[in-house]
């Protein structure tokens, strides 16, 4: 086993087992938070790939929302209801959108890249919010989901969602880990450091960035799909607004980019922090979140994962 999977990947597989078993011991709200965290963690995983390349997107909510609305619209307008199928279709739709957008966006860098992503996400927001048929700011409910032909709802639905996102997170995490150890994955740091050199080595920087953008978009779409199915509702403010993109970036910085597990850990911590802050410090929960972000930027510029790296022995 050791030869086929790296340390990180073994860690992910073990985590999968632990998480799956834990659902029998955890209360419902914890399972729900777990589902949401891991789903959002997928978005952050994509952002991590981009951040390693020196790019940050302030508009991942575009793909997160596309994934969610794909699930919602397919559920309402077609007979499709299988959780796995809907997720796959959401990944395809957001991946395709990322491909098309990437053709344009991969020419830009730094703050302009970020702003252009933001612009497109707000364009989608505008279209959804002013669209009465899709429910406007209220959005619409998503229900009647099935798995392997069996209708699921309530607690069972939450369980199934949880199992699904755990498996998805593990598989996609391993996939991204493989990608990051490939030559193209390593090109992230090279592109970030010196694009001219990369071009002179015979590689198209634009095409490489395109691929990364598509991966990030597809991951975000997957996250949006599972979130929508777990919440049972989709609306523009929760899925597409710029504050949502901001939170994803927040978690990316909080978690650090050292390892594919970091986005998931960071996301879980973020959701727990937000839940507790909202519950116990309702008047200052945003103050708390903002403070945590500031402290992380000031004292842990490489994110929380850098703490893990410091305490563990180097490979």
């Amino acid at each position, binding site marked *: 086993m050791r030869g086929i999977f790296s340390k990180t990947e073994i860690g992910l597989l073990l985590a999968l087992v632990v998480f799956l078993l834990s659902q029998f011991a955890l209360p419902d709200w914890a399972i729900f938070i777990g589902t949401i965290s891991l789903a959002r963690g997928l978005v952050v995983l994509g952002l991590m790939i981009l951040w390693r390349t020196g790019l940050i997107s302030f508009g991942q909510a575009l793909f997160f929302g596309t994934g969610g609305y794909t699930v919602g619209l397919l559920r309402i307008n077609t007979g499709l209801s299988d959780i796995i199928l809907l997720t796959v279709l959401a990944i395809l739709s957001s991946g395709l959108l990322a491909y098309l957008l990437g053709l344009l966006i991969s020419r830009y860098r730094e703050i302009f890249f970020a702003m252009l992503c933001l612009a497109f996400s707000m364009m989608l927001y505008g279209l959804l919010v002013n669209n009465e048929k899709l429910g406007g700011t209220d959005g619409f409910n998503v229900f009647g989901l099935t798995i392997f032909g069996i209708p699921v709802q309530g607690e069972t639905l939450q369980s199934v969602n949880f199992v699904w996102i755990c498996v998805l997170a593990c598989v996609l995490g391993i996939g991204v880990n493989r990608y990051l150890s490939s030559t193209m994955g*390593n090109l992230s740091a090279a592109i970030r450091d*010196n694009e001219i050199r990369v071009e002179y080595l*015979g590689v*198209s920087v634009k095409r490489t960035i395109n691929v990364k953008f598509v991966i990030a978009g597809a991951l975000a779409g997957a996250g949006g799909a599972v979130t929508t199915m777990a919440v049972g509702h989709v609306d523009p403010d929760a899925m597409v607004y710029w504050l949502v993109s901001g939170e994803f970036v927040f978690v990316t910085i909080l978690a650090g980019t050292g390892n594919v597990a970091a986005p998931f850990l960071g996301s879980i911590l973020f959701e727990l922090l937000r839940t507790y802050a909202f519950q116990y410090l309702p008047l200052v929960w945003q103050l708390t979140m903002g403070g945590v972000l500031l402290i992380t930027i000031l004292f842990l510029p490489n994110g929380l994962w850098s703490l893990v790296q410091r305490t563990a022995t180097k490979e």
Partner: protein
Amino acid sequence: MALLNTHELSKSFGSVVAADRITVSIEEKEVIGVIGANGAGKTTFVNMVTGYLKPTSGRIFFQGQDITPLSPREITHLGICRSFQVPQVFMSLSAFDNLMIALGVVQKGVIPLLRPLRRKELIDAAGSILDRYGIAEYRDRETGLLPQGVRKLLDIAMAMVHNPKLVLLDEPTSGVSVSEKYGIMDVVMNALKDLGITVMFIEHDMDIVERYSRRILAFYDGSIVADGTPDKVLENEKVREFVIGEEIHRKGRKKAGAKNA
């Protein structure tokens, strides 16, 4: 058929003429020194040949193929590589990792790029390249922290990874101390010696140019004012006036028969 030839290659930036109808022909296995004052058009020439700058007019042919419209990466795959005046390396990565990436991308296409990077064949190749260029002791240090001379060698080593037919070295010894200059040129020329590669190097130090080149191109004000053997070119009046400067005595000129290595 010439390996590389340019035809009336010109480049203007607004009213500034950086290159003025440069026509030159380069054969295989030549070792050519390129001299000229700053701003004479040497780097512009290299930038155009490697596709980084598009000429205002004129054509460039490599092995008979018109490469004028091609991009740097296409030209790299055709067999022309270059090093840079300011070494273009990946500063946050180690010297070893720099070479690994260069080695990893030698093959064209997307699928080869998806192979794991840290595989034995590349690790071995990177190690031997570091040895060949004498920078093995720096292999694991962050390139941004390395001395300029080491970065220069790394830059050149990365250029050579693609086994080009023609390599253009832009001031390979600039920015390093006098004592290091010859060391670098020796290492580089030795590394290239047995490969039968055509080399063009831009250089300001006349001793180095004399010692290592068999043909010299002298640039002035965007044109080539002299083209020939070192003896002929360095005696050329225009070259003496515009490139070398009359006052400067060239050391080693008096050594009889002092030819290149």
